[in-house]
């Protein structure tokens, strides 16, 4: 495979992570537990969506098949999305959503940091912008995890349940696809495996303050990178794709 085609494929995978997590966050809009969070979560959703747009648009140009960002975001079938399972997990309660955001941001922050030295100028540019956005996501989600974990009896219990429900999905963040491997070897994208220490450090720090324990995960959940998704993903896509499927090519 040519490097450009490999990079396009790897960037679409990365874009999928951002699109799907951004969509999940956007589902809170109008439903957040307090007005402050009703703005904060869509803020983060828009950061995710902005990053997805950059990645899709660039990837669409590289692969040269005439697909634009909308085609990639809205007109693929479920098996063609390669996002990790973590980002498609349902919002659950606020504790689930904040923990999911922390898990993802704690991974993407060192990822974008490392990507600022990518051999590709465009990726450097994306990384420099994204690293600031994602640093805030760690802080915001992390502070909530601490306050809920170290909060009331009920909040601590819900936070603990979120950890049990989601921790098994974190290992997939560090997995790679064939095209990612090509990009890693060409110094276009960072190697996720090398970000594990930083991820562990961030999570351990937050968990210590939140009085949470990292559970043993004998069988990590994965499959998203191969296009094998959880049941909830079909429902997510039907909502996400509704407008483009119903009114093809619509703009506003």
């Amino acid at each position, binding site marked *: 495979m040519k490097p450009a085609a490999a990079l396009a494929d790897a960037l679409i995978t990365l874009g999928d992570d951002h699109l799907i997590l951004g969509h999940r966050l956007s589902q809170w809009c109008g439903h957040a*537990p*307090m*007005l*402050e*969070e009703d*703005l*904060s979560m869509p*803020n983060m959703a828009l950061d995710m969506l902005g990053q997805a747009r950059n990645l899709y648009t660039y990837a669409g140009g590289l692969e040269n098949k005439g697909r634009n960002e909308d085609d990639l975001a809205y007109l693929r079938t479920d098996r063609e999305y390669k996002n990790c399972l973590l980002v498609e997990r349902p919002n659950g309660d606020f504790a689930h959503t904040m923990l999911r955001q922390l898990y993802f941001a704690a991974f993407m922050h060192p990822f974008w940091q490392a990507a600022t030295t990518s051999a590709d100028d465009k990726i450097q540019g994306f990384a420099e912008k994204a690293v600031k956005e994602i640093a805030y996501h760690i*802080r*915001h989600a992390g*502070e*909530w995890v601490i*306050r809920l974990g170290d*909060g*009331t009896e009920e909040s601590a219990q819900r936070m603990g349940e979120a950890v049990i429900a989601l921790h098994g999905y974190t290992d997939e963040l560090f997995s790679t696809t064939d095209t990612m491997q090509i990009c890693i070897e060409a110094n276009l994208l960072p190697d996720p495996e090398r970000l594990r220490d930083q991820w562990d450090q961030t999570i351990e720090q937050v968990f210590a303050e939140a009085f949470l324990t990292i559970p043993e995960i004998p069988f990590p959940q994965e499959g998203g990178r191969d296009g094998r998704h959880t049941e909830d993903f079909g429902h997510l896509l039907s909502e996400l794709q509704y407008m483009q499927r119903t009114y093809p090519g619509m703009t506003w």
Partner: protein
Amino acid sequence: MSTQHMPLWEVFIRPRNGLDHKHVGSIHAADSKMALQSARDVYTRREEGNSIWVVQSRDIIASDPDKAAENFDPAGDKVYRHPSFYDIPDDVGHM
């Protein structure tokens, strides 16, 4: 939402270096760290500022509206307190 866990905070934003922090509104938050984050999310989404202050609303001592008359009315007829009785030399320009 209980005010016990989420007290009210007043938010002040400085739009640019050299200007003053101005009161922009209020938010609920568990503590000062979260108050700053919420203030950032609620009040600086459109590049409104480069610095944020928050202070718990209950720490602000306000003048009594019932005493507004004795507080403020006496200044009403003391126009000589305004620096408007001086001729400013042309060289000084706009003040």
